[in-house]
């Protein structure tokens, strides 16, 4: 069976994995369906009313512009989840490609690529992003996703390379080579499927990291740009009303914690399932 599917299935059998998966499904469902049931977060019915505390009409209260915070948190979930999924998908793809090439080709290509990864890993991801993002006055969402994705593959490529080194001497790979299979065939048919399990685990854990990263960047004013609501920029905006309306920052923050926690729970469970040593 597909190793990635197998990892998901055995994660589902663990209480941790099931909790994480169910929570993530709930968050994703409300992110997709929420906007039909909630007021438009961009609508500002009564600016003069100011921040309202959590109550019947607005379960999470309203912010200083009297926008419903629940609606904004749900809209923020859409943004955060799509940024995270797309960026992680990109990182996993680049990481897998580099790892496969590096591990299977070996030699100078391998040395060159891995030295590059060593160097890139010396700079914390946040700082690479700060340096590249600071040139934009207002970064387009797609560019943000591409940049976050393009800076997240270094560790993944190492992981995939290690897997390739482990399996490339296995009999079935040697047999394929002896039968005259092309490198592309060996990589795509034999090596890639066997690295999918660890790759999926890394990607799931990467989702939590990227959500935190995007929230942090938005908190610094460099990530998702207003009026598009994002959890990080909501916390940033709430700083102005920290004393008078603390709920404006507390709820988006809780949304970050719960989402990252669920992704990590699922990722942990999958790792435990695929790697018995770490359990």
């Amino acid at each position, binding site marked *: 069976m597909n190793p990635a599917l197998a990892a998901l299935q055995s994660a589902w059998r663990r209480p941790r994995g099931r909790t994480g998966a169910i929570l993530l499904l709930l968050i994703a469902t409300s992110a997709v369906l929420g906007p039909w049931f909630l007021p438009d977060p961009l609508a500002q019915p009564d600016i003069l009313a100011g921040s309202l505390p959590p109550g019947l009409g607005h379960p999470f209260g309203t912010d200083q512009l009297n926008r419903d915070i629940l609606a904004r948190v749900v809209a923020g979930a859409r943004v955060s989840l799509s940024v995270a999924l797309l960026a992680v998908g990109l990182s996993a793809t680049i990481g897998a490609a580099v790892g496969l090439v590096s591990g299977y080709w070996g030699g100078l290509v391998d040395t060159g690529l891995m030295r590059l990864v060593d*160097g890139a890993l010396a700079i914390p991801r946040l*700082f690479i992003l700060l*340096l590249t993002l600071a040139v*934009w006055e207002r970064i387009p969402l797609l560019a943000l996703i591409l940049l976050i994705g393009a800076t997240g593959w270094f560790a993944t490529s190492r992981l995939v390379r290690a897997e390739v080194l482990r399996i490339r001497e296995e009999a079935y790979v040697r047999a394929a080579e002896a039968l005259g299979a092309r490198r592309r065939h060996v990589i795509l048919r034999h090596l890639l499927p066997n690295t999918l399990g660890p790759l999926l685990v890394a990607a799931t854990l990467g989702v939590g990291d990227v959500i935190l990263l995007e929230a942090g960047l938005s908190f610094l004013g460099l990530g998702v740009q207003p009026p598009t609501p994002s959890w990080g920029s909501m916390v940033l905006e709430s700083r102005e009303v920290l004393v008078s309306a603390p709920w404006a920052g507390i709820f988006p*923050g809780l949304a970050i914690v719960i989402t990252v926690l669920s992704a990590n729970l699922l990722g*942990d469970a999958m790792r435990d399932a695929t790697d018995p040593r770490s359990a």
Partner: protein
Amino acid sequence: MVGRELGIWLVRRTGQAAAALIIALTILFFLMRAAPGDPLSRLSEARPLSPQEVAALRARYGLDQPLGTQFLAFATGLVHGDLGVSIEYGRPVTALLAERLPATLLLGGSVLLLNFTVGLWLGVRQAVHQNRREDRWLTALSLIGYATPSFWLGLVLAWLVGIKLRLLPAAGMQDPLLSLDAGLLTRAADILRHLVLPAITLSVVSIAATMRYQRTAMLEVLTLPFITTARAKGVPERDVTWRHAWRNALFPVITLFGLWLPILVTGSVFVEAVFAWPGLGSLAATAVGGRDYPLLMGASLLIAVLVVTGGLVTDVAYALLDPRVRLA
């Protein structure tokens, strides 16, 4: 390990670290210069600049030179300890970094201290009480801690402890109203009070990682035969835990030090910005706001150096302390 082998390994590992650093510096330089946009755009926001003024400024900061020449000038300056002039502050970057370093070291040092005491202790307790209620609670707490954004936790603590309860100061490193002739002890106590909230905020994430690591390392050791032997001999459980098991479960945790540095540095940008702690992190946050490239670059360089040296020191310490380690 034989001394000679260790020597060769040391040289090789140091060479690797140096190569990583050089590549990191090159990546940083090209990231900064290849990016779209103009470093001077921020300056022209204050008032419109004439083309002559722009040309003069570009010449002053060397932005009119070809990329290769710029890189050479940058590398030469680096060797001489010159990181250029901050656009925002108009002062040498090295001076600014040196000014802000002590506050960051104080904060980072306190966080490491908390890690090495609270984090390790909690991890050992978890392993000893594996799968019992205490372990479950602590595991849940560390998972939540790991998922909490530090900027948000900082704001919540500043609001709750600093503003609502008025227990501790919520911003800065010193009380600006403290009289100038206050004694050394009063000053130290004042700084300590300001340190509590940022240190706790920044510790939460790294302690979560430490606990987890220590728990796993400890569980592995606790299954080994010599632990059973110790128990059979009638060694008190407390001594089994701390004298027999923990000593052997400490070494793997040392490798965490290399992992902590990037986490701490990243976290300190947010925590220092939230608490207005006058360190490197808040300097970097200001540099981002002001699009101050030389400063941002200088801070990133310093951090790359710290991360690479941290990794090297960790590996060497591990190799020297634990002769069983097979060196790759």
